Every structure is written in structure tokens, then in C-alpha cells.
């Protein structure tokens, strides 16, 4: 047993980069999945609607931890070699895809009906209508809640610790097992998470206020 020192702090801080990297991957992957889901949820095509609704129902209706376990223990069943890193990235991508999809569906549906009808009246194809009329306007209102959701993604990456991926939380557990000073160790871990998430929370709140001002004007 040793006391918590500078090298331990450095070990935890270094592990935080994996938290950041995992969050970025989950956000990019989740963004792609989320866009598809949001388009499916607003589509007139019955199959697309049913598939995306089912996807959202399942991924928002079950715990992220269980999704992580299913990917981690399910991949070998399909004959795939998988490590905690890939399992975490995949589960977080699917999970944030479902939440972002539902957020963005709301933003797409918030675009006034008249805009859709105008695009139809101009004879735009579905692709042009979405790309040039609906999505650019939806993007503007989607940014604040998306930044807010980033906080959830960062916090969600902590669950990767449970399947043994050494990110911030797991690093804290490892150092705690060595030093047995949980008070200091988990305070340090919490403070690092806080300074990763708090700026994002503030930014999201700031953007939301600006958006609501520009709307009332």
C-alpha cells in the first residue's frame, strides 16, 4: 500500500484522454446513426419509420450497461474477436445514435409545414428538400440540445470501465485498489469529469438562451 501521489494523479489524468477519445468516437458514430434514425422517423416510408421507431424503442428502453454487455458478450457468439475498446465504442455509438436521433427528429418536425410544402411545390426531390430546405434550418435549433447531449455521452463512457476498458473511471478504480484512499481518488476522478462536462453544459445553456432570444424577436 502506498499513498496517493503525483504519479497516481498523472495516471488518472492520462486515462482521461481515453474518455475524451471514446466520447468523440461515440459522438461521430452516434451522429451518423442518429441522422439516419431521425430521417427514418420523419420519413413517409412505412418500413423506414417502423425500423427507426423500433431501434429507438429498444435502445432508449434498455440500460446502456446491458447494451454494453450484449455487444461485449455477443460478438464472440457471432464469431468476432472483440476487445473492450471496440465493444464500448460500438455500444455507445448505437446508444447515442438512438438519443440523438430522437432529439433531431424533434428539430426536423419543428420546421414549419409550409417549408416542406414549398419544397414539394418547387418539385424538389426528397434529397434536395432535406439537404437544401429542411436540414439547414433544423441544424440551427439542433445545436444547443446536441451540445447538451455531449455531456451525457462523456458520462456514459464511464460504463466502459465495467467491461474493463481503462478510461478515467477504471483508472480511478485501479489507483484506489493500490492506495486505498477512495476519498482523494474518486474526488480527483469526479473533478476531471466535472471540468470535461461543465464547459459543455454552460455552452449548451448559453446557446439555448441565445436561440430563444432570436426566436422571440
Amino acid at each position, binding site marked *: 500500500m502506498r499513498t496517493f501521489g503525483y504519479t497516481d494523479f498523472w495516471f488518472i489524468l492520462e486515462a482521461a484522454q481515453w474518455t475524451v477519445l471514446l466520447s468523440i468516437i461515440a459522438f461521430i458514430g452516434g451522429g451518423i446513426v442518429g441522422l439516419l434514425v431521425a430521417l427514418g422517423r420523419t420519413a413517409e416510408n412505412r418500413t423506414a419509420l417502423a425500423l427507426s421507431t423500433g431501434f429507438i*424503442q*429498444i435502445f432508449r*428502453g*434498455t*440500460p*446502456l*450497461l*446491458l*447494451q454494453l*454487455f*450484449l455487444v461485449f*458478450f*455477443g460478438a464472440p*457468439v*457471432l*464469431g468476432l474477436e472483440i476487445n473492450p475498446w471496440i465493444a464500448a465504442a460500438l455500444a455507445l455509438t448505437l446508444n447515442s445514435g438512438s438519443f440523438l436521433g430522437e432529439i433531431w427528429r424533434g428539430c426536423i418536425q419543428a420546421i414549419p409545414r409550409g417549408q416542406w410544402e414549398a419544397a414539394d411545390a418547387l418539385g424538389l426531390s426528397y434529397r434536395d428538400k432535406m439537404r437544401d430546405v429542411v436540414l439547414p434550418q433544423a441544424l440551427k435549433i439542433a445545436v444547443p440540445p446536441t451540445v447538451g447531449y455531449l*455531456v451525457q455521452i*462523456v*458520462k*456514459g*463512457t*464511464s*460504463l466502459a*470501465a*465495467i467491461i474493463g476498458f481503462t478510461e478515467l*473511471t477504471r483508472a*480511478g*478504480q485501479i489507483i*484506489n485498489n493500490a492506495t486505498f*484512499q*477512495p*476519498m482523494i481518488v*474518486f*474526488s480527483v*476522478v*469526479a473533478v476531471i*469529469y*466535472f471540468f470535461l*462536462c*461543465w464547459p459543455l*453544459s454552460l455552452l449548451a445553456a448559453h446557446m439555448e438562451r441565445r436561440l430563444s432570444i432570436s426566436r422571440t424577436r
Partner: protein
Amino acid sequence: MNYDFQFGPVFDAWPLLLHGTWMTIQLSFLAMLIGLLVAVLCAWGKTAGPAPLRWLINVYIEIIRNTPFLVQLFFFFFALPAIGIRWSPYMAALVAMVVNLGAYATEIVRAGIESIPKGQIEAGLALNLSRIEIFRFVVLKPALRAIYPALTSQFILLMLASSVVSVISADDLTSVAANLQSETFRSFEIYIVVTGIYLALTLAFSYVFRVVFQHTLNYPDRR
């Protein structure tokens, strides 16, 4: 794919799974009730309390909302016993869930309170209601009605997040699954079944919330 699915050992353990499901429901329900109480008190403090109290409540909310639940759980289970507060995994899990929900629900309840028009409170004053009566009947009930959808989806998120308490073996559904897995080695089958149970719980919770709404808050609204 040549994997031989064996759900037998999972279904043989149904009494354990049932017990785990009940524990998850119980834990979520208790955390929900106490957490809502905490949230109402904090929301009241935040809208009507003195400045230092408002500041304190804000610090609490920001800390909880910007750190992961897992780290909060470790804090309650490992760090607090180190300074002399000893409790069982179940108590640590319950306290962590209450503290977590309290922070999120405070902001929701506060938004509801602020949605009440000032004229409505003044009408209460004109009717000579006491401060407590005004808060209970004129502010809280319509506020709860306004925030009901946000609040209930937060409850469901809490129920799903409760799976995390299995890491301190708090005897919930996911820890039952983890124990079964180490006995039978049918991890994939177990987690499929347990994920299905959680999905059923989510659907059941939202059904119950809908029924409760129709029976308690569904009064005619003139707006």
C-alpha cells in the same frame, strides 16, 4: 454462426430473476419518491430561498449533473465509508440514486414552478390562502402537471441507470444476471433475457405513469 443457444439455465433461474426484477422496481420506486421530495424542497429553496441557499443548491445540481452516476456511486460506496459513514450496498445505491435524481428533478420542478403565472399566485393571496397552501395547491399541482412528461421520462432513465448499482452488488436485476453468468457461463443468453426484462419494465412504467396521470392530474384546463 454455429453457436448453440441454451436458454435452459437462464429460465431455470426464474425465481432469482423475479427477485432481481422486484428489487430493481423497489429500488427505483423508493429513489423516485424520496428523490422527488428532495427535488421539490430544492426547487422551493431555489425559487424562494435566501441567496446562500440558492447558491448551495446550484452547486449541488451542477456537480451531480456533470459527473457520471458510476463515479457518484463509487463515492458513496467507497469514499464515505472511509470517513466513517458505513452502509450496505443497498443503502449506498439508494442514496446515490436519490442524490442523482434529486439534482435532475430539481431543475425540472423549478421550470414547472416558474411556468405558473404570477396572477395565479396573487389570486391565491387574494383568497387568503397561507404560503404553504398556495405552494401546495396553486403552484405545485399545476406545476407537476406541466412537467409530468419530463419528470416521468427522468424516472425511467433513473430505473435504467439503476442497472449500474450492480457493480457494488446491490442485489438488483443486473447483479442477479452477473451472478448467474458466473455460475452458468451463458452470458449472452442471460443478458438477452435481462435486457428484455428491462424493456418490459420501461413499457410497464410508462403505462403506469399514463394511468396515474389520467387519475390524478387530468383535470380540465382553461387556457
